[in-house]
């Protein structure tokens, strides 16, 4: 899966540690998700979407779908 988590995080001027604290996970988890090395579970994906006030599909898309970032 692809995601625009890093862009959304930077829009809010949060560090990876800030986002990790908000999500209740480790910073390495945030790094892995942002780099596309780790696909989060559905509950965590919902929480990420909720944190940024958007839908899951606004943050995560499949590899062959174009991702449009609406800040």
């Amino acid at each position: 899966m692809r995601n625009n988590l890093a862009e959304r995080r930077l829009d809010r001027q949060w560090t990876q540690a800030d986002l990790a604290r908000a999500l209740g996970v480790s910073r390495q988890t945030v790094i892995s998700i942002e780099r596309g090395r780790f696909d989060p579970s559905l509950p965590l994906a919902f929480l990420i979407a909720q944190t940024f006030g958007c839908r899951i599909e606004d943050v995560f898309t499949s590899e062959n779908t174009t991702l449009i970032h609406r800040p």
Partner: protein
Amino acid sequence: MLYVNAEEYSVSRKMREDRIVNDQTAKRPAPVVHHLLAIAFGTILTIAVSLVVAASNSDDFWLAAGIGALCAAYPSVSLGAWIFVSNHTVTRDLRGEESVELIWMKQAASGAFLDVLIATLAVTVVLMIGRFDVDALPVLLILIGLSAADAGLRYLVSRYRAMR
């Protein structure tokens, strides 16, 4: 800070609340008395283990007690630190079960298990065909050591691949 809508305000408020919760579990020094409790716990457990080891080797009581104490000291004090100190010094993730480290650990454990299974099968076949006679204890100890090292190495490799 201006919020575009009520939903964003709600999310930001939740983040502040989460931060407050996390600040309560944030890393901070443990009180000295908790370090003393950890050392006392470790000392008592070490003495208990060394006495049990010595009692089972009454011919060399003090030697056995010394070896038992040397083997038990580090794990005992570590256990004491885990019980009394780690609550203050270790930051716990609210949703640790969602963290990537758990995935790496599961991958490492399952990979190491398969390695041990294959190694055991291969060694067993070689021993059966060659009709070798070996002591089981050293072989089992080597197997335990290798499986632990294998799992640790696999975890580090998973971590390196995800972080690079």
